[in-house]
């Protein structure tokens, strides 16, 4: 293995020399250089677009989210370009499917950094894809903006190049929910959640948050991810449950909620769910009538509220969402409204960061990260239609409002809104102390 050292060390030098030689030869179009994709990209010129590598779940279990992440991102990019781009340069979204798979996700990040000449990487939702991709982003020194709501960024598991400035993490979401649930719905909760890391975040943080409120979680029911029918687990819900807390993800969500209704019939306890359980699903699907009167967390209200301020209307309009949170062109195509705002807001944070850093070339990537780390207050407005946010530069995580809505007449009506400060928790990491 000592030989490796020599080869690797020596290789570093000779590899670069060889590459230079190849680039020279490549000018004549000979050899490898003639093959598609083998010409090393040329550093972007000042008028060339800023390329945002967009890692999107087009296939795999995340596809329903990916579609709406895609639309929101393109809408935001169009708006930015209408506003004159970033530092005088237009923004180009370079989208690539990651198959909702951590291996492919890492490959896509590599492709952004080394092949497609992207300035930053952006967008992914499912946390295992983030975990699989982030190490490569760190090694390639590619600013990696994730829109995942996982606690992985703020927990310190990732690196200085990975940042989540557009969507709150699960820990802060459930922290903000616990007071409402314990005060208004019940002190003894039963939790049903997927046996995924995402579900475990809910389990761990909500349980602790309830205890802090003097309430308790009396039963955890973790549903295996391969499951397609759920009724058989519901009898494990204890009779003394005062509030039922549910969160589910994946293609089975509608079955899950429907079977929950069938199980209880007319006599269900108060129910509090995360809208993840019904993202991209019509609230008025057959079998969901029982949800009337139950409560949901929403990242952003899906149904247009009567008192909605202008930035919210503007955002809905630009993305192409109707008053019910479905596609303006197809009312059956329901959006993932509670999460997708994160793409919009992240792009604007990126824009602001690039402007603050005077970003010109990929050599300025480190300055971009430092500029975002320096951010704090993000006021409500067109760029942040979900609400005012506070960014924590040390943990690379943003904090913002959460909405609690009640189903009334087949629509979600906001009952309460928590503030960014309600969702604060002590820092678990300080990324700014890490080297680039």
């Amino acid at each position: 293995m000592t030989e490796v050292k020599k080869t690797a060390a020596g290789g570093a030098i000779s590899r670069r020399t060889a590459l230079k030689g190849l680039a020279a030869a490549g000018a004549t179009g000979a050899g490898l250089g003639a093959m598609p994709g083998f010409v090393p990209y040329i550093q972007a010129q000042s008028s060339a677009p800023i390329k945002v590598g967009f890692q999107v779940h087009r296939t795999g279990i995340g596809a329903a989210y990916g579609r709406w992440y895609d639309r929101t991102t393109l809408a935001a990019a169009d708006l930015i370009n209408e506003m004159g781009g970033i530092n005088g340069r237009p923004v180009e979204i370079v989208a690539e499917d990651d198959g909702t798979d951590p291996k492919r996700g890492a490959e896509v990040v590599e492709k952004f950094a080394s092949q497609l000449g992207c300035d930053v990487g952006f967008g992914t939702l499912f946390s295992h894809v983030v975990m699989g991709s982030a190490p490569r982003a760190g090694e390639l020194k590619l600013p990696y903006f994730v829109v995942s709501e996982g606690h992985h960024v703020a927990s310190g598991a990732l690196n200085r190049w990975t940042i989540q400035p557009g969507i709150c993490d699960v820990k802060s979401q459930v922290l903000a929910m616990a007071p409402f649930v314990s005060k208004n719905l019940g002190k003894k909760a039963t939790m049903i959640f997927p046996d995924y890391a995402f579900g475990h975040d809910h389990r761990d943080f909500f349980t602790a948050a309830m205890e802090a409120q003097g309430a308790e979680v009396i039963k955890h029911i973790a549903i295996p991810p391969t499951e397609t029918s759920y009724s058989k687990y519901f009898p494990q819900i204890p009779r003394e449950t005062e509030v039922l807390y549910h969160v589910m993800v994946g293609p089975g969500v509608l079955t899950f909620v429907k079977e929950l209704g069938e199980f209880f019939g007319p006599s269900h306890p108060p129910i509090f769910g995360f809208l993840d359980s019904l993202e991209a699903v019509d609230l008025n699907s057959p079998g969901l009538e029982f949800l009337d009167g139950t409560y949901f967390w929403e990242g952003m209200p899906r149904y247009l509220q009567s008192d909605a301020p202008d930035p919210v209307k503007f955002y809905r309009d630009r993305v192409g969402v109707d008053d019910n949170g479905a596609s303006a062109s197809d009312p059956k195509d329901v959006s993932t409204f509670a999460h997708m705002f994160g793409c919009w807001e992240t792009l604007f944070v990126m824009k602001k960061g690039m402007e603050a850093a005077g970003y010109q070339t990929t050599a300025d990537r480190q300055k971009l990260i430092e500029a975002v780390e320096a951010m704090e207050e993000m006021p409500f407005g067109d760029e942040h239609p979900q609400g005012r946010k506070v960014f924590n530069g040390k943990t690379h995580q943003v904090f913002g409002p959460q909405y609690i809505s009640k189903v009334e007449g087949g629509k979600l009506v906001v009952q309460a809104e928590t503030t960014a400060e309600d969702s604060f928790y002590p820092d678990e990491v300080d990324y700014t102390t890490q080297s680039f």
Partner: protein
Amino acid sequence: MDFGPYLVFASLEGAVLAATLSLTALGLSLVFGVMRVVNVAHGEFFMLGAVAAWFVSALGGEALGLPAWAGFAAALVLAPAAVGALAWAADRAILARVGYDPERTIVATIGLLYILQQLTLMGYGPEARPVEPPFNARIALPWPEWGADGFAWTWPWGFGTTSYKLFVIVAAAALLMAVWAVLSRSRFGLIMRATQYDRETAQAFGIPVGKVYAWTFALGAALAAAAAVLIVPIQQAHYLMGGDPLLLSFIVVIIGGLGSLRGTVLAALLIGMSDGVISVFFSPTLAKILATLLVALVLVFRPQGLFGAKTA
């Protein structure tokens, strides 16, 4: 819920799974038994059945204004027919050309699986879409109890089922009977069994083996699609829904013993019920692990299947 009602409740849930699983597995078993090939795309035929059911019922509901029950009834006929036709074409275009070689068929059907999934994603989308059940009343169930006041019926919290779930069980049983009748009484069934028993001899007796294979493949796919139409009002149509039924069907076919209709149905009951009953005793994921290991160990220690006769 108390132990007694829970056990009955879980068994009832298991019975619904067993009902659709026995249809799906029977389709796989026919293909496997007659053609001696492993059809990895079987789960995709199941998925296509569900998707086709959504199209038929949505079209019937919106374009023609049909009530839910009529759309569902139409789906129950049209979806299996369409999927069967597609399978027939796949057999002629691909499987027949690789000569039903076992290994090549596995690769070809994996390729088919990717193609069908991707086409569905492109044409139908990534969402899980519901099909409205023709009827769906919740039925609360009573439980006998001997208390201080003697015998009484009680109504445990959550103890119930729906009329549609009961219908699924009955409909699957009826379909199974129909398939059994076709296989054991009709000329086609006779020809199929002859081909299964000895391909060369069947050919020598003038049976068009190629045609029999194509029809068997179509019938197998249609059975999977029929099972999917039955289940889709309970679980929505989604382009990745084929994996689970494929896996479970394989297990059922192996445990039930090759090409045995009785064994397949019994094994489906066993798998469906144990899936339900094990969930009573353990936390959900642990229950899945144990059920999975149980199946593996059954196969290890009774490789001929639980119901297959031990061959010398």
